[in-house]
């Protein structure tokens, strides 16, 4: 398959997801949240994962991390990190690998911090779990440096999560994610609550860390501008599938799938005020089984699903 040849062109893939399928069971039948998603991330690469809200991005992230929890379950596919199958690995082995190789910035950073532990303890937890006990002073310095990296004041060290603003919590999560300098960071909307100044700082931090360590990143997000600035390749999800994937420049210049085109068109501008592009999307019922759309290479390394006759109607202009 052509994707394979594409892979060999770029470096060794650090993450390889094949035909991942995740379902949520509900009383009214399974919700097919991820319907056969395949992609890979090369060493040092940043892959952007964008897509409609509810298209399954977070579910993919959780699947990759083997954190799908009931009622969700992985019904098929494989995920390998550095060539090892994450999904088949014994729990203990996986646990040791977590965070050192696979870190996560969760989407709900607001609720992802333990409300009864201070910031310092939550960060210390990861460090000490994976690197063993450390002298208090060294540890504190290290945590403070991390906080500084995400532009947080030192006083945050002693605070509890509920004493932080939304953006601060999100930055705590980021600081935590880079604490162990992991080889792959999955960041689920890591900067959605940050002002652009901080966003930029944090993005830079992420990039620096990445560059220094040669780590890779999957950056889930909505902000196409941010994606344009940060990622190497970009994958577009729609209704549980990747409908287009390719180098960021190519994709921005030549979007193929109607949804991608719409996405790019609706980016607001700061330069001029223009009428909002509003379209009504009609998605398939998430419970009906549907085929995984075949991707074809539209240009080098740029794959897109050819919208079939029915799919054309996916995007309908707002009246």
């Amino acid at each position, binding site marked *: 398959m052509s994707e394979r040849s594409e892979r060999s062109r770029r470096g060794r893939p650090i993450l390889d997801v094949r035909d991942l399928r995740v379902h949520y069971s509900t009383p009214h039948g399974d919700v097919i949240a991820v319907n056969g998603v395949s992609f890979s991330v090369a060493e040092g690469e940043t892959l952007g994962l964008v897509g409609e809200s509810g298209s399954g991005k977070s579910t993919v992230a959780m699947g990759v991390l083997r954190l799908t929890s009931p009622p969700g379950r992985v019904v098929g596919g494989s995920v390998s990190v550095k060539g090892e199958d994450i999904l088949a690995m014994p729990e203990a082995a996986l646990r*040791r690998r977590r965070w050192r190789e696979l870190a996560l910035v969760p989407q709900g950073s607001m609720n992802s911090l333990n409300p009864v532990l201070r910031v310092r303890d939550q960060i210390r937890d990861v460090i000490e779990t994976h690197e063993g006990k450390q002298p208090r002073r060294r540890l504190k310095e290290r945590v403070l440096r991390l906080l500084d990296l995400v532009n947080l004041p030192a006083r945050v060290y002693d605070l509890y999560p509920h004493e932080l603003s939304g953006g601060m919590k999100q930055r705590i999560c980021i600081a935590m994610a880079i604490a162990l300098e992991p080889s792959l960071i999955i960041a689920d909307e890591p900067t959605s609550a940050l002002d652009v100044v901080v966003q930029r700082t944090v993005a830079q931090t992420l990039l620096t860390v990445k560059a220094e360590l040669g780590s890779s990143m999957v950056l889930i997000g909505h902000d196409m501008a941010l994606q344009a600035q940060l990622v190497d390749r970009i994958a577009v999800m729609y209704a549980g599938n990747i409908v287009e994937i390719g180098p960021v420049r190519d994709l921005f210049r030549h979007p193929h799938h109607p949804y991608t085109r719409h996405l790019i068109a609706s980016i607001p501008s700061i330069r001029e005020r223009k009428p909002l592009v509003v379209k009504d999307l009609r998605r398939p019922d998430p419970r009906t089984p549907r085929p995984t759309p075949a991707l074809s290479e539209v240009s080098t390394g740029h794959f897109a699903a050819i919208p079939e006759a029915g799919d054309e109607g996916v995007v309908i202009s707002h009246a």
Partner: protein
Amino acid sequence: MRGLSLGYVIRRVGMFFFTIWASATVMFFIPRLAPGDPVSAMVTRLTSQAGRVEGSAALITAWRQRFGLDDPLLVQYLRYLRGMLTFDFGYSLAQFPTEVGAMVGRAMPWTIGLLLISTVLTFLAGTLIGALMAWRRTPRLLRWFLPVSLTFTAIPFYILGIVLVYVFVFALGLFPVSGGYRNDLTPGFDFAFINSVIQHGTLPAMSIVLASMGFWALGMRGMMVTVAGEDYLTLARAKGLRPLDVLFRYEVRNAILPQVTALVLGLGGIVGGTVLVEYLFGYPGMGALLYQGITNSDFTVIQGIVFILILTTVTAVLIVDLIYPLLDPRITYERR
């Protein structure tokens, strides 16, 4: 302190004294509401041994006078308040002239020792079981075993106690049958005495632990279940924390909060003792003392014990209120 303002602390401490006064007042009047007094109890009890007590009317009058039971209630009440303020509980009316203080002093260490240890053990065991019942990673075998361990809670306590006595004392001869320690030993901090105290305390403690563990477990399980879906647990798992760390530092730490309140309340109440345990095992504690006090209308004994009970409970509650913001940083006592 976190979440506490000075004003709050002052108000709270004021309430502390108010509550003590209110409870003490209630407990002054309650035992006096029923007909009968310690003297008639004493005389009736004497007749049960001696058939009849001659001149009982004269005896009753003389004692009532001596105990001041004929004084106006207000006078008695003021006398009582003064006594409580100075921790002078006076003489037991039923066991006159034994001082209430001495009786309580004799019984209290036993009760506190036994109940403190067993309450804490129960709490730990029950909470742990409850946590494991709700934990995803609990081994299958344990999963079956845990609810089974709780069926002890379903067996009426006294049956459990008696079965323990039969099995461990009479069938196996592992433990002494009753009492607090061997009588041929003098209390002291030597090995023989402590060993004997432990031997005597094991069965009563065991029956308390087995019988009430289930309630803690159920409560804990309920809270674990409430916490289980939280996002921070997912992140904790993603962080690769050791499963036990996730369990204790994240799940249990959040789920345990109401349990702690209940525990502190329970600890505050332990000086009240457990009548049934002490009865079954002949344990020389406060529960039996209070029970005898109540059935004999021994006002001063009731008042003495209940006053200590009030002090400890109200203090425990005060402590809960003051430390709770430390346990749960989200709490504020800010008025809304």
